[in-house]
């Protein structure tokens, strides 16, 4: 039986939030969403999702700052985080993102049909 997972999607693009949530819900997972880093942190602390998909470039607290704040709070420090970043952004940036403690870096655009597999694989979830 597929475990029920709950994933928090943090992205300032309404369209991207919708795409990601549809793709993950078809896998049987539940999703919650936030449109910026501050809202994402609040939801992460309150809801304790199994994972967070976190956009890198957002107004206000961007992805790296949001991750830093999540890791600095014992209530959210252990929640796995996968960054969502744009194609063509420098490899050096990906290295920096990994060094910050992210559990993965997912490049947009991606194939929605394989998104759940990619997330599960990155986090070592056996489905």
């Amino acid at each position: 039986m597929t475990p029920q997972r709950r994933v928090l999607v943090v992205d300032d693009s309404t369209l991207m939030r919708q795409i990601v949530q549809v793709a993950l819900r078809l896998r049987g997972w539940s999703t919650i969403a936030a449109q910026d880093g501050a809202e994402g942190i609040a939801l992460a602390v309150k809801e304790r999702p199994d994972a967070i998909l976190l956009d890198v470039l957002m107004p206000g607290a961007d992805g790296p700052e949001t991750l830093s704040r999540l890791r600095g709070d014992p209530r959210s420090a252990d929640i796995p985080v996968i960054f969502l970043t744009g194609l063509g952004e420098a490899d050096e940036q990906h290295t920096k993102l990994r060094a910050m403690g992210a559990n993965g870096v997912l490049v947009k655009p991606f194939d929605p049909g394989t998104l759940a597999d990619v997330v599960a694989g990155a986090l070592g979830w056996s489905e």
Partner: protein
Amino acid sequence: MVRVTPAGGMRPTTPAVSLSDACRSDLASALAEIWQMSRASVRAELATIEQAVAAAVAGELPDDVRALAAGEAHKLAGSVGTFGFTAASERARQLERALSAGPVAPAQATRLIDAVRECHQEMFGTDDSF
């Protein structure tokens, strides 16, 4: 750690590769519905970029408008590529880079008009006015 390279994206009517047939159909239907509901907002984002480029052509692009347009281009590049609009995603990325790099010279902006037009063409075809 995983780094995922794009799979070329998919249009709403293209089946996903790792789901059951039923889920493929559900995903395609859901994406098609999302795209239909999002067309107006995507068109508005593209219009913001178009207006910024037009202002740059005239040599009158304020930094705050340029930054706003760069942000819209960033969002478009990631989202529409996921629907399979590969060329539009690439052009949006080109626009994002140009608009976020600093002031845009009129000659450079003239070239960016083509990028905006190509975005529009792939996503909305020739039926919609540009």
